């Protein structure tokens, strides 16, 4: 079963607080993430993992009447931006939640576990049969 584990819940304002972290805290956080990915790779459960650029760089695109991109869309102030994600292939949803909890406990300032919210969603293997 494939699950997507999303590091969500970051507004633009929240994101700014990362800039105030001490360098060693950032380094510990990154080291944790690298280790975490490595262990998921070794268990054969990791399919992909990506980190996204800062919310300030996000662009809201719509097709104009003529199909050309309109890039001046505005995100609501309260919008929660995706920071990054993992896609894992696991035996059960419980295992996906276990992995999500590990990511949730990534170290924050002072090495204290952040216990951040991770959104867990199943990945569809394809469109439902009635669509085709």
């Amino acid at each position, binding site marked *: 079963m494939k699950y997507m584990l999303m590091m969500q819940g970051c507004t633009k304002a929240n994101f700014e607080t990362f800039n105030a972290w001490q360098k060693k805290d950032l380094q510990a956080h990154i080291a944790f993430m690298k280790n975490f990915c490595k262990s998921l790779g070794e268990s054969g459960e990791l399919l992909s993992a990506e*980190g996204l650029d800062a919310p300030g760089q*996000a662009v809201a695109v719509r097709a104009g009447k003529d*199909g050309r991109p309109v890039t001046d869309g505005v995100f609501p102030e309260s919008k929660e931006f995706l920071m990054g994600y993992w896609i894992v292939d696991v035996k059960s949803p419980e295992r996906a*939640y276990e992995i*999500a909890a590990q990511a949730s406990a990534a170290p924050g300032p002072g090495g204290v576990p952040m216990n951040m*919210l991770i*959104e867990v969603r199943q990945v*569809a293997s394809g469109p439902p049969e009635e*669509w085709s």
Partner: protein
Amino acid sequence: MKYILMTGGRKAEWDAFAAWPKNDVQAYAAFVNSLNRELTESGELVAAVGLAGPGQAKAVRAAQDGTPITDGVFPEAKEFLAGYWIVDVENPARAYEIAARASAAPGPGGVPMHNPIEVRQIMSGPPVEFL
């Protein structure tokens, strides 16, 4: 340059989608399939993923002892990701062009939806000073 193109909506919008007539859903799926094929042929498609509905989504946090707490609640206004494309393109303008194609996917009655697509660059790795 790698970009992620994300589409999604609030739960109410998902519910509305579930009420589309079958032929509109089929036209939408055919559009997405053909866009994916075209991006595969141009060598720009890295991944295309669809997610299960928001009803199945879980908000997970680690408890003090590190075990998962799975009874988290999402805010009412939360936008749920429906799916995404990752494309590897020459420049941001090309990513926006592809996003506009996806935005013009047919909705009910075959009318282009013009829904917003969130375009974000994918980082190749953490900044050097983090390592």
